[in-house]
C-alpha cells in the first residue's frame, strides 16, 4: 500500500520534472528567438557597415563581418555621404546636432517643469487651477497634429533653421510637470514647516530640499526625454533646410532617398549605427531609471 503510493508519487514527480524541463526549454527557445528577431535588423546593419559599397550593391548580403569597418566609419564620420541625391553631411555634424537637440529638450523640459510644478504645488495664488489645466490640456496636442500651424508660427517668429526653433516647441511638456507635481505632493508638510521655522524662503527650500529629493525622478525623466528628443523626425524634417543643422535621423533617411540600389549602402549602414548607439547606450546603461521613467511618466 505504502509502496504503491511511493511509486505513484515518484512517477508524478518525474512527470512533473519532465514537464518543467520541457517548459523551460520552450521558454529559453521562445526568448532566444525573440531576442534574435529583435537583433536581426541590427546585426545586418552592423555587418553591412563593415563591407565595401560593391558587395552590398551587388546584392550579396553578407552575414559575417568584412574588412572595411574602419574605412567606412572614418569616412562617414568625416565626410558623410551614401546617397546619390543629397549633399554629404558628415556624421559627426549630424550627431552633434542630434545630441545638442536631445540635451536641450531633455534639460529644458526638466527645468521648466520643475519650476512650474513647484509653483503649482507649494503656492496658492489666483488662477492656480487655470494654469494647471492649461498645462494639462497640452497633453492632448502632440506636435504632429498641429505641425503645419506650428511651422507657420515659427515662420512668423523667424525661428526657421535655428537650433532654437528646433527645440523650443518640444520643450513644453505636460507629462513632466504632472510627474513632478505628483512627486512634490508626497513631500511631507513638516519639511515646509521646518523650512519656514528656519526662516528659509521658497527658493532656498527649492534648492536645499526639493531639488535633492527629485534627483531620481529627474534622472528617470532625463532618459525618457533624451530619447524623445533624439528620435524626433517630422519636426526637424520640416524646420531644417540648412544642412548644417541636420539631425542624424532625418539625415539618414535623406541619404536613402528613394531607395536607389546604387546608394552607398555601407555608409548608410554605418551612419545608422552611429544614429543608434547613443540612445541605445542611454537605455541600456541607465536601465533602472529608464524603466522607472517610462512607467511613471505614462501612468
Amino acid at each position: 500500500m505504502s509502496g504503491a503510493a511511493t511509486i505513484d508519487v515518484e512517477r508524478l514527480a518525474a512527470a512533473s520534472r519532465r514537464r518543467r524541463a520541457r517548459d523551460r526549454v520552450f521558454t529559453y527557445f521562445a526568448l532566444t528567438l525573440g531576442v534574435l528577431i529583435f537583433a536581426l535588423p541590427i546585426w545586418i546593419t552592423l555587418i553591412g557597415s563593415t563591407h565595401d559599397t560593391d558587395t552590398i550593391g551587388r546584392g550579396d548580403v553578407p552575414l559575417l563581418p568584412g574588412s572595411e569597418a574602419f574605412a567606412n566609419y572614418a569616412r562617414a564620420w568625416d565626410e558623410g555621404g551614401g546617397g546619390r541625391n543629397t549633399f554629404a553631411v558628415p556624421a559627426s555634424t549630424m550627431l552633434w546636432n542630434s545630441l545638442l537637440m536631445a540635451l536641450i529638450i531633455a534639460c529644458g523640459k526638466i527645468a521648466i517643469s520643475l519650476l512650474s510644478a513647484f509653483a503649482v504645488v507649494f503656492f496658492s495664488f489666483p488662477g492656480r487651477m487655470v494654469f494647471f489645466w492649461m498645462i494639462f490640456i497640452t497633453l492632448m496636442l502632440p506636435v504632429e497634429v498641429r505641425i503645419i500651424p506650428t511651422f507657420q508660427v515659427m515662420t512668423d517668429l523667424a525661428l526657421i533653421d535655428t537650433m532654437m526653433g528646433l527645440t523650443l516647441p518640444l520643450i513644453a511638456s505636460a507629462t513632466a510637470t504632472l510627474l513632478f507635481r505628483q512627486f512634490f505632493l508626497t513631500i511631507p508638510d513638516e519639511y515646509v514647516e521646518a523650512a519656514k521655522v528656519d526662516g528659509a524662503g521658497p527658493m532656498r527650500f527649492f534648492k536645499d530640499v526639493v531639488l535633492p529629493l527629485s534627483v531620481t525622478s529627474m534622472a528617470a525623466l532625463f532618459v525618457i526625454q533624451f530619447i524623445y528628443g533624439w528620435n524626433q523626425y517630422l519636426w526637424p524634417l520640416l524646420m531644417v533646410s540648412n544642412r548644417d543643422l541636420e539631425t542624424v535621423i532625418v539625415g539618414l533617411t535623406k541619404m536613402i532617398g528613394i531607395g536607389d540600389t546604387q546608394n552607398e549602402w555601407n555608409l548608410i549602414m554605418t551612419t545608422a549605427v552611429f544614429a543608434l548607439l547613443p540612445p541605445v547606450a542611454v537605455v541600456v546603461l541607465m536601465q533602472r531609471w529608464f524603466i522607472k521613467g517610462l512607467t511613471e511618466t505614462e501612468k
Partner: protein
Amino acid sequence: MQRRTLLTGAMSLGVAAPALAQSAPIEIQFWHGLANPLGGLLEKRATDFNATQTKYKIVPTFRGSYPETMVAAIAAFRANNAPHIVQMFEVGTGTMMNAGRAVKPVHELLAETGVSIDFDDYLPGVRGYYSLADGRMMSMPFNSSTTVVWYNKDAFSRAGVDPNKFPETWEGVAEILPKLKAGGGTQVPMSTAWLTWAQIENFSAIHDIPLATLANGFGGLGTELRINNPLVQRHMAALVQWQKDGLFRYGGRNNAGEPAFPNGEAAIMFTSSGFRARVQREARFGWGVAMLPYYQGTPRAPINSIIGGASLWVMNKGPAAGGGRSRDEFVGVAEFFKYLSNPEVDAQWHMDTGYVPVRRASYAIAKDKGFYRENPGADVPIEQLLRGGGTLTDNSRGIRLGGFVEIRTIMEEEMERAFQGQQTAEQALTAATTRGNVVLRNFERANRG
C-alpha cells in the same frame, strides 16, 4: 567698466558697419535643387560669374529636391525672407505664373534694369514653356532636358534585334519586347522612370493631342484634363498588359526606376536626357539613345517633345507692399542671367551635364567643337525637341497647370493601382481625370482673387 567698454565697442562697430557695406558686394541669394554632381557644376557657374565682376556676389544654396526647394521658397516668401533667385522645376511653372506679386517676371526685370537677353535665339520648346502667350518671358530658362529612350545594345544583339536602330513606332517596340524577353539576357525588357512625364505628358505632345483644355492650361485657369482619350488609354492599357506579361516593369515614382538601366536589369529605359552622365559612368555595356516612339497612323505624329528640368524665377522678398528689393539687387540678378545666357557658358553647361543647350547658338558651338562626334546620341534630345519642324502647337508647347505637382502624383497613384491589377488603365485615367480636375478647380478658386 568692462561692460561699458563692450557697449562702446559695439556702438563703434555699428557706426563702422555701413561704411564697410559700401565696399562689400551686394549678395544675391540663389536657392537651387540640384544635388551633386550637377549641383556642384551649377554652383561653379555662380562662382565663375562672381569672378567676372566685384559688384555682386551670387550665393548659391542647395535646398533639397525640387519640390523641397519650391516649398522652402514659398515658406520663405511668407516669412518675408525669400531668396532673390529660386530654381523651380517645370511642373511648378503653373504655380509660379500665378504667384502674383511674389515673383518678378523676367521681362519686367530686364525692362527695368535695361539688360537685354536675346530670347529669339532660344529653342522654341524652351522659350514657349516659360513665356506668356504673347511671348514675354516669365522666368529664365536654365537646365532643360527631355525624355528619350536609353537602350542596351548588347542585349539587343543577343536577342537578335538590330542594335543600331531603335524602333520608330510603338508597334515596332511591341514586336521586339518578346524577343528581348526571350534572348536579351536582362531581367526585364523595358522599364520607365518619370511615368507621367515620359509616358503621358511627352507621349501626348509628340502625338499632338491635348493633355488639358485651353492649350494645356496656357489659355487660362479654367483648364480641364483631357488625358482620358483613346490614344493614351491604348498606351496605358498596353503598358499594363506588358507588365502582366513580364515585358515591362514599372519602376516606381519619379526617377526611382532609373538604376535598372545602368546596372543591366532593363534593356530599355525611358527617362531624361540628363541621365547621360550616369550611364556613361556606370553602364558596363554598349548603349544607345533614341527618340520617343509613336503610334502609327496618328495624324501629325511625331512632332516635338516637351522639356523638363527647371528655370530660374526672380522673387520679391515678401508679401509686404513694394516687394522689398532694391534696384541694385535686381540689376545683379539680371547681370547674372545675362551671363548664363552667354552661348559659350550655355554650351559648356550642356556638354558638362547632358542637359540640352537652350540656345541655337550654343548648339552650334557644341557641334563645332565636335561634341556629337565624340558623344554619339548626345544630339538626339535636341533633334527631338526640334522634331516636326520646331513649330510648337497648342499641345506641344508645354504644360501650365496649377497644382501640377499634385496632379502628377495623382496620375502616378492611379496608374500604380492599374499596374497592381486593381483597376483597368481606362479606370485609372478616368479616376485621375476626376481627381486632377478637383485640384485644378481648387487652384482656380484660390488664385482668381
